[in-house]
């Protein structure tokens, strides 16, 4: 149960002297900390006092703390997290939920020799604070700052990088087996959430772990969500999938407990020799009475312990110590129950549990969302799809636990029976969509560009090969800003456009997005996809009634007529081309800007006409090599368009991963800003002086 701790103002004394006093005084006044469940939130905009946390730089400083001190540390850690995330934005709810678990883990185990792996990594803020990165927390998710996820190159305490989910058990097993082969003796612990447990890879890993029987610990952080709480606009909905009811049954296996109490009583009376029998009964009972709960993990070969109260420091430390001290356990599965957003009432009460927040005011919980004139592409997509679905009853939407992120929570509200959240299971989502398409429905799979990578074989084998009309709406295409390379959608043009039957298109603004949703809805004989970036629209007028008009497939458009140089943009890069064109015009060069709209099938006529009437054609896209530019080059060379004096040059994302940062910084690092494009034009034309002028 939550504890109400009073705030304790340490007056104006500086932190150093407090640290000193703290160490000297054995009997100190009761230190109070301000992060717990106070309804009259004492959350400050200035740094909250954290006397104990100030003495901890690395886990080794935590070894001698008592349970009471660990609890205090947990509370201080909470205030610190709330304070920092309020200034930078980030994933708040998940981090708050694992504070006690993180403290317990670092107290009991010896990172970095002991490997602790955080699945997804978005809940690793307490871990980062405790492992020498507290002073860098103000740079969280910013250019050149701390990553919002775990990252091996950032710290030796981050054992494995993450961003996508459900990889931790696999990696942990690899580390455990590696340790065994090398003859080392460290512990390996993977912390995975119940949402991530809906992905198949988690089971693949557990199955293998049970078979190999290597010593390792898997901690299931169960906060009863089993789908991001952003999925529904109107409040929490029952969790996705059958898994959650299995987990709840585990949590409430009263009948088993009662039987066990009876058995214990019997054993006590009869004596020690009955112990073995009682143990047998226990195992039997587990199998029969708790149903398909613990036996699911046990059948996979992991030893199940739990459920455990994930906010009880005492329990956590006890269990972890016991498991650590037991030699030869094989794989152990500890089921910990936590509450997302715990310790910050605004988060606890919010429907989305403050999963991902912008900067906010700690004392009121209000997020600072800047008002913009246009909405996000995500919202426009949702509106477009709803308009299409109003007239076409066959349109259905599928997403993989990203109702908020894809905008399909709006679709769900409008069409409750036509929106499917499959949990974190992209592979299943794609084949599920394929099955729907077989039955004559029109499925729209809204999966982020980088998350769709996981389902690539399903896209090829189940959808494209059989030419099933599944529509893929790939949000977060291109660079994504603070989330970094794990979430960056750089490869989708490449991997989609090489598929024989796929129609590949990209809108250059929000009106185009509406039209492309309509186009995709109309393409019923083959699969199609369209990509759009993170961010807001540019402000063009929307089509009438928020309903797009299907475009002619394989036809681009010319936006600006110019001469000598043609900038052929694909998708959001067209906006960069337009800005570059105005920069070039200041230097008296009027270039042509065209919007290709389709990467597959290419607008051959447009490319031919551009190639014949310009001396330089530059293709621009926010994607990797092998995408739009490569397809244009292939066509041009096959068509003989490169045999004359026309030059073709590509502008693509560079051949390296772009670190997280602000979108502007990332574009600049990638060389895709309008200035870069304009400078490239001048460089190729030999006008290096103008190029330098633009870049300075």
């Amino acid at each position, binding site marked *: *149960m*939550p504890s109400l701790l009073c705030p304790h103002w340490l007056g104006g004394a500086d932190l150093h002297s407090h640290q000193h006093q703290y160490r000297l005084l054995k009997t100190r006044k009761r230190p109070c900390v301000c992060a717990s*469940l106070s*309804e*009259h939130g004492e959350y400050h905009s200035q740094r909250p006092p954290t006397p104990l946390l100030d003495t901890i730089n690395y886990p080794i400083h935590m070894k001698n703390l008592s349970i009471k001190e660990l609890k205090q540390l947990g509370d201080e850690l909470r205030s610190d997290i709330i304070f920092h995330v309020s200034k930078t934005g980030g994933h708040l709810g998940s981090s708050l939920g694992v504070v006690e678990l993180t403290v317990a883990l670092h107290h009991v185990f010896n990172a970095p020799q002991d490997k602790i792996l955080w699945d997804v990594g978005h809940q690793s803020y307490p871990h980062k604070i405790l492992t020498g990165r507290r002073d860098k927390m103000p740079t969280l998710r910013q250019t050149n700052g701390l990553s919002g996820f775990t990252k091996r190159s950032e710290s030796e305490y981050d054992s494995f990088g993450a961003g996508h989910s459900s990889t931790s058990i696999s990696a942990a097993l690899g580390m455990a*087996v590696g340790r*065994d*082969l090398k*003859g080392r003796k460290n512990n390996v612990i993977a912390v995975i959430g119940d949402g991530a447990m809906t992905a198949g890879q988690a089971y693949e890993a557990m199955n293998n772990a049970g*078979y*190999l*029987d*290597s*010593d390792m610990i898997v901690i299931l952080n169960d906060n*009863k969500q089993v789908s991001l709480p952003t999925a529904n606009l109107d*409040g*929490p*909905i*029952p*969790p996705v999938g059958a898994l959650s009811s299995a987990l*709840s049954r585990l*949590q*409430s*296996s*009263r*009948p*088993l*407990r009662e039987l*066990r*109490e009876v058995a214990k009583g019997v054993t006590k009376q009869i004596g020690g020799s009955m112990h073995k029998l009682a*143990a047998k009964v*226990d195992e039997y009972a587990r199998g029969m009475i708790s149903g398909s709960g613990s036996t699911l993990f046990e059948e996979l070969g992991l*030893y*199940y*312990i*739990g*459920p*455990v*109260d994930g906010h009880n420091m005492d*329990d956590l430390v006890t*269990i972890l110590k*016991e*498991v650590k001290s*037991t*030699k*030869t*356990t*094989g794989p*152990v599965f500890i089921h910990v129950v936590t*509450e997302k957003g715990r310790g910050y*009432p605004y988060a*606890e*009460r919010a429907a989305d549990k403050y999963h991902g927040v912008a900067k906010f005011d700690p004392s009121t919980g209000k997020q600072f969302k800047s008002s913009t004139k246009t909405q996000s592409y995500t919202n426009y997509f949702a509106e477009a799809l709803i308009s299409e679905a109003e007239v076409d009853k066959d349109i259905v939407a599928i997403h993989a636990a990203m109702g908020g992120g894809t905008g399909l929570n709006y679709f769900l509200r409008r069409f409750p029976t036509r929106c499917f959240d499959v949990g974190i299971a992209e592979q299943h989502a794609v084949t599920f969509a394929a099955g729907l398409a077989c039955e004559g429905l029109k499925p729209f799979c809204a999966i982020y560009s980088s998350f769709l990578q996981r389902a690539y074989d399903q896209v090829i084998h189940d959808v494209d090969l059989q030419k099933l009309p599944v529509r893929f709406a790939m949000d977060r295409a291109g660079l994504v800003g603070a989330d970094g390379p794990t979430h960056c959608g750089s490869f989708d043009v490449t991997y989609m456009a090489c598929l024989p039957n796929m129609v590949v298109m990209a809108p250059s603004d929000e009106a185009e997005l509406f039209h492309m949703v309509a186009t995709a809805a109309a393409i019923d004989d083959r699969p199609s996809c369209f990509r759009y970036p993170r961010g807001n629209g540019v402000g063009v007028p929307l089509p009438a009634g928020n309903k797009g008009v299907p475009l002619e497939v394989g036809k681009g458009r010319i936006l600006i007529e110019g001469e000598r140089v043609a900038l052929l943009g694909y998708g959001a890069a067209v906006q960069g081309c337009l800005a570059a064109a105005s920069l070039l015009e200041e230097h008296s060069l009027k270039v042509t800007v065209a919007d290709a709209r389709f990467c597959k099938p290419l607008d051959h006529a447009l490319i031919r006409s551009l190639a014949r009437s310009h001396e330089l054609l530059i293709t621009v896209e926010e994607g990797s090599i092998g995408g739009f530019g490569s397809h244009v080059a292939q066509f041009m060379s096959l068509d003989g368009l490169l045999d004359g004096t026309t030059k073709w040059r590509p502008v693509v994302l560079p051949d390296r991963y772009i670190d997280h940062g602000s979108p502007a910084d990332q574009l600049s690092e990638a060389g895709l800003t309008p200035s870069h494009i304009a400078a490239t034009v001048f460089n190729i034309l030999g006008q290096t002086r103008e190029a330098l002028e633009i870049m300075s």
Partner: protein
Amino acid sequence: MSFGVVPRSGNQTLHLWPNHVPATKIGGGGGGSWRVAQRRREGSWSAGLSSSSFRTRAAVEERGFVAAKGSFYELLGISEGGSYDEIKKAYKQLARKYHPDVSPPDRTEEYTRRFIEVQEAYETLSDPGRRALYDRDLARGLHLAFSTRKRFDEELEERSGWRNHWQDQIAELKRRSMNKDAGENLSWGARMRRQRAESSVE
């Protein structure tokens, strides 16, 4: 107290533990459906209740329980200050009336449903602790759906019971680990551990 009663029609069994009421329609089809209590958390809920109420609400929506049309007192037909004896008497009367075995055949589902409601009313009101909580909720104008408060209390009780559970599991783990790497265990992990043990002995 347990009732091993099977409703005449339908395929739902009243569980042996009266606290566990199935969250689906009793007897399938037919009149009336269970509706989920859609309660928005307004600011009127007090601090101490905040997180517990949220869990309660979550429990409501998770298990899909119906909103009570009246209070338990109205259901039993007694005044809010009724004594234990009154409650017991009312309960016995109603239980006899609505017992599925004696219901008119065409209204079995409805009667069974009533029976369960009456049973729950009795359980809540006969337990002084539970009754106090229920009264407090009622005073706030909060008609919690049947079983939600009870479920929350159960949850609390369960959590403290969890400790016994995992303590047993840890003991079992230790016991198993004694024999884990005996010769018969041919798993890869066991073989590696044996190998390591042998090489460290040398």
